[in-house]
């Protein structure tokens, strides 16, 4: 029996409805349990001495003064931890040529970025550990620093890892069609130089881990703020020599992730190694400076790109030369080549064109490592694509919406394979654009813009179409050798009173995973969502799975939940049919009762069935299966990724005297396939948009030429505040994926993917009559004034 999604009045119709999140109640009362809220008996705290140099040889380490601090128990160097923890190398076989040196949990004889852990001080309190750390005396010999991305491969630049031969971590060139020929003869060619600002996720909860090695049981328990507990289980087991079955990763409440908490961090592995040595619980909570210097960074790209169009505005070709610098090591185990690789995969995404060349060059440097952060590569690819499309439209005197309509894949064109070799199962660019036009009343907005212009007020409208990669298959990591699961599972159980427990391998970091799962299981079994207890984030009880990243929770975890719930329903009805001496096909479960499928008449509450199965099994026919626990797994197999699409619009005002941008309103229409919970999807979109707006207007990590990080606090690194953010209108088109019964694709990254490009295009729309253009994010007042020629020094 399949779910009749087309019928909103179907029984148990919870998929597609807004239902409250089961975990919100405790969070508003301050009853959340984040890692730092946990205290264990004999627990100690670790603080790290971190490299103050971007590149330095470690000559000696003197810990005598630190040991004298009251409360300091042990002090560890990189060499101490290397005795219990093997190093890792973050490469993927399918990213040909990607290289990175072995990395240890703490620096061995050399530090390679400001913030790299060098010494660990363990004490009875965090304060004492910090006092001890302040007294550790490390003698460094500074080494030449590789700070600039664009000169990293020059012969005159020192090689950061001599054994690697050069500073090139990865390079990929993709070419389709006759790019040079088309550019030589095209009606119009527009080129531009783009820069996206190196930024980071700024999770309000800093990275947190508490590891408890119990040698008497041979069991390691890690309470960890992570998106991928099973991946962490595998990593700790592998590098600390413990069987996977003896590593339990518990991921309770997580205070924001956005991709930041899906990576393996040296200081977190160090914490586990120290616990293994000291045989007691060790807690590490990053402070804010540590967050800025050691959380992964992202989006540090510089791009030269051009577009060729014909006389009708038809896109003929894109040519993209992308550079990115990833710090001193590729980050384990997802690697730091994925972001550049995504730029190659995603540029030109919405458009039907034939000739495409994209190259990404990924280099090492002495800065904090970069890796995957929300909407990996998308904001860059969308900014390049949509920036060029707008510039081409302006050159042709064409409306930016019109040029997009002439080039987007037709809604009935699918399935198609893009010039980047991405396979699209079904997208809705035109329907989405039509919906956006209606929501924003485009013509009225243009009239308002003209009226404002007449008053000397410079407003701009920016449009950005995009595609988003969701529901990744093993083609993302698994085929490259990474032990990262693309499959996910769910176990659903009926307890004696008829209540349901669902244990899922996907995790909750606030996006509403548990609500989404409760709805699916409720509908799949036939009970109220409030009667489904969802458990996530515990590797000891949930099926092995990938966790929550790349917008896979609903599409992969949701489908596994639906299948396990349907299996439990069938098991329940098999027992019910025997008890009621009815044909199983004539029965259904609704609101926790076995009912007659035709009339809906109640035949028996689940509680009664539970009583019989668990306590009076003797009264059931001998040999009757009574399996009230069912597990199902799901993995995509038809497409490497489920692409979604959408389009955003920004309306804003630029003060040409101060360079300040005021966001007036923002719109997003997005197609994530089947919507399970409209409110949760809308809020994922809104939250994603605001992270994109942060990247567009405020967020940028600054380094000096010596690789010193200059803005390591929230007072210096700006993130969006309530007062400067606009209201956002969100609309949807639903094109379910046919790969699963649920039909859900991801929605977590669409907002972040498109918002920066929409803002860039809106600013340039406002500035165009003044002959100015900006292409370097974030679009700070200074950069806008420079573009206007108001600042020249």
């Amino acid at each position, binding site marked *: 029996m399949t779910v009749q999604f087309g019928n909103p009045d179907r029984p148990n119709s919870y998929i597609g409805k807004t239902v*409250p*999140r089961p*975990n*919100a*109640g405790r*969070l*508003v*009362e*301050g*009853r*959340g*349990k*984040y890692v*730092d*809220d946990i205290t264990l008996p004999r627990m100690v705290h670790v603080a790290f001495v971190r490299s103050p140099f971007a590149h330095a040889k470690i000559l000696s380490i003197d810990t005598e003064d630190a040991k004298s601090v009251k409360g300091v128990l042990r002090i560890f160097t990189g060499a101490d931890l290397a005795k219990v923890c093997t190093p890792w190398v973050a490469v993927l076989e399918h990213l040909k040529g990607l290289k990175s040196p072995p990395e240890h949990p703490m620096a061995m004889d050399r530090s390679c970025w400001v913030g790299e852990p060098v010494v660990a001080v363990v004490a009875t309190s965090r*304060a004492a550990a*910090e*006092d001890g750390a302040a007294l550790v005396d490390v003698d460094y010999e500074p080494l030449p620093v590789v700070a600039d991305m664009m000169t990293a491969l020059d012969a005159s630049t020192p090689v950061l890892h001599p054994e690697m031969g050069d500073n090139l971590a990865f390079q990929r060139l993709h070419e389709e069609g006759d790019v040079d020929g088309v550019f030589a003869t095209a009606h119009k060619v527009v080129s531009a130089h783009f820069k996206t600002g190196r930024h980071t*996720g*700024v*999770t*309000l*909860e*800093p990275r947190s881990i508490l590891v408890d090695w119990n040698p008497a049981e041979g069991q390691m328990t890690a309470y960890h703020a992570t998106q991928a507990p099973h991946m962490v289980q595998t990593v700790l087991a592998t590098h600390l020599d413990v069987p996977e079955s003896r590593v339990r990763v518990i991921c309770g*409440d*997580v*205070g*924001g*992730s*956005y991709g930041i908490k899906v990576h393996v961090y040296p200081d977190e592995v160090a914490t586990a190694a120290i616990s293994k040595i000291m045989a007691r619980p060790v807690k590490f909570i990053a*402070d*804010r400076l540590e967050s800025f210097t050691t959380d992964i960074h992202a989006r540090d790209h510089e791009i030269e790109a051009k577009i060729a169009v014909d006389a009708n505005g038809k896109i003929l070709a894109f040519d993209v030369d992308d550079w990115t610098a990833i710090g001193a090591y590729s980050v384990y185990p997802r690697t730091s080549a994925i972001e550049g690789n995504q730029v190659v995969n995603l540029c030109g995404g919405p458009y039907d064109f034939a000739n495409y060349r994209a190259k990404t060059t990924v280099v090492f440097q002495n800065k904090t490592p970069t890796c995957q952060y929300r909407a990996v590569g998308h904001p860059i690819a969308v900014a390049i694509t949509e920036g060029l499309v707008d510039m081409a439209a302006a050159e042709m005197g064409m409306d930016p919406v019109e040029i997009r309509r002439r080039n987007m894949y037709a809604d009935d064109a699918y399935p198609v394979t893009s010039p980047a070799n991405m396979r699209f199962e079904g997208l809705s660019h035109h329907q989405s654009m039509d919906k956006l036009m209606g929501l924003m009343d485009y013509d009225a907005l243009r009239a308002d813009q003209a009226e404002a212009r007449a008053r000397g007020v410079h407003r701009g409208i920016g449009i950005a179409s995009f595609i988003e990669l969701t529901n990744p298959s093993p083609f993302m990591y698994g085929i490259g050798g990474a032990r990262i699961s693309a499959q996910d599972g769910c176990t659903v159980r009926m307890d004696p009173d008829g209540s349901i427990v669902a244990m899922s391998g996907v995790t909750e*970091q*606030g*996006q*509403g995973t548990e609500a989404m799962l409760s709805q699916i299981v409720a509908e799949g079994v036939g009970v109220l969502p409030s009667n489904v207890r969802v458990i996530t984030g515990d590797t000891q009880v949930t099926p092995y799975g990938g966790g929550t990243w790349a917008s896979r929770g609903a599409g992969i975890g949701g489908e596994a939940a639906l299948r396990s719930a349907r299996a439990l329903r069938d098991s329940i009805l098999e027992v019910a049919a025997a008890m009621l001496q009815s044909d199983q096909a004539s029965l259904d479960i609704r609101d926790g009762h076995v009912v007659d499928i035709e009339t809906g008449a109640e035949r028996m509450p689940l509680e009664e069935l539970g009583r019989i199965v668990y306590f009076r099994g003797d009264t059931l026919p001998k040999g009757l299966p009574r399996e009230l626990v069912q597990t199902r797994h799901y993995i995509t197999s038809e497409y490497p990724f489920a692409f979604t699409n959408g389009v955003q619009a920004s309306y804003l005002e630029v003060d040409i005297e101060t360079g300040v941008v005021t966001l007036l309103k923002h719109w997003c229409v997005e197609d994530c396939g089947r919507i399970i919970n409209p*409110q*949760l999807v809308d*809020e994922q979109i*809104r*939250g*994603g*948009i*605001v*992270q994109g707006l942060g990247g567009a207007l405020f967020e940028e990590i600054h380094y000096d030429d010596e690789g010193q990080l200059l803005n390591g*606090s*929230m*007072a210096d690194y700006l*993130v*969006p*505040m*309530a*007062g*400067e*953010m606009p*209201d*956002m209108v969100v609309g949807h088109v639903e094109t379910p994926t046919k790969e699963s019964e649920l039909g859900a694709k991801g929605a977590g990254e669409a*907002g972040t993917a498109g918002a920066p490009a929409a803002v860039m295009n809106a600013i340039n729309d406002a500035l165009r009559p003044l002959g100015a253009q900006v292409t370097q994010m974030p679009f700070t007042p200074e950069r806008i004034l420079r573009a206007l020629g108001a600042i020249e020094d």
Partner: protein
Amino acid sequence: MTKAFADKVVIELTVNGEPVEARVPAGQHVVDFLRQDLGLTGAHASCEHGVCGACTIRVDGSSVRGCLMLAAQLDGSDVWTIEGLSDKEAIRDLQEAFIARNALQCGFCTPGMLVAAEELLAQGGVPERATIREHLSGNYCRCTGYEAIVDAVETVAQQRAGQVQV
């Protein structure tokens, strides 16, 4: 920490309506005192610079950053945290509005956000959305994009003003 910061100070105060006596290091911040000594983990340490508002609590009727005040300064104070405000059902309508509107995702900023929002609501009337946004600009949220929070606060203001049915 220098010795002066480590010196212990005796304080007597009221926390969530209950009397508390403690000997605290002179350099200990309020948020650490609440979390580590009293087990009140609802207030969260995040930026530790007074910027993000995750540690916002109520001290003698005003919103205070738990990371910018020392525990030693609390002598004689009346302190309320999210735990006490919840137990007393002092902001039940606001909490319910946050849940209904999904004005929280990861929940890490939420206790501080609620204390800050209540400070505005306690002034009475129905503030403009821009006023709500301005008032909450000292409380960062990285998940929601703020709109749902503004909606929830606006709804509660309207409810309390009798403009909409609860």
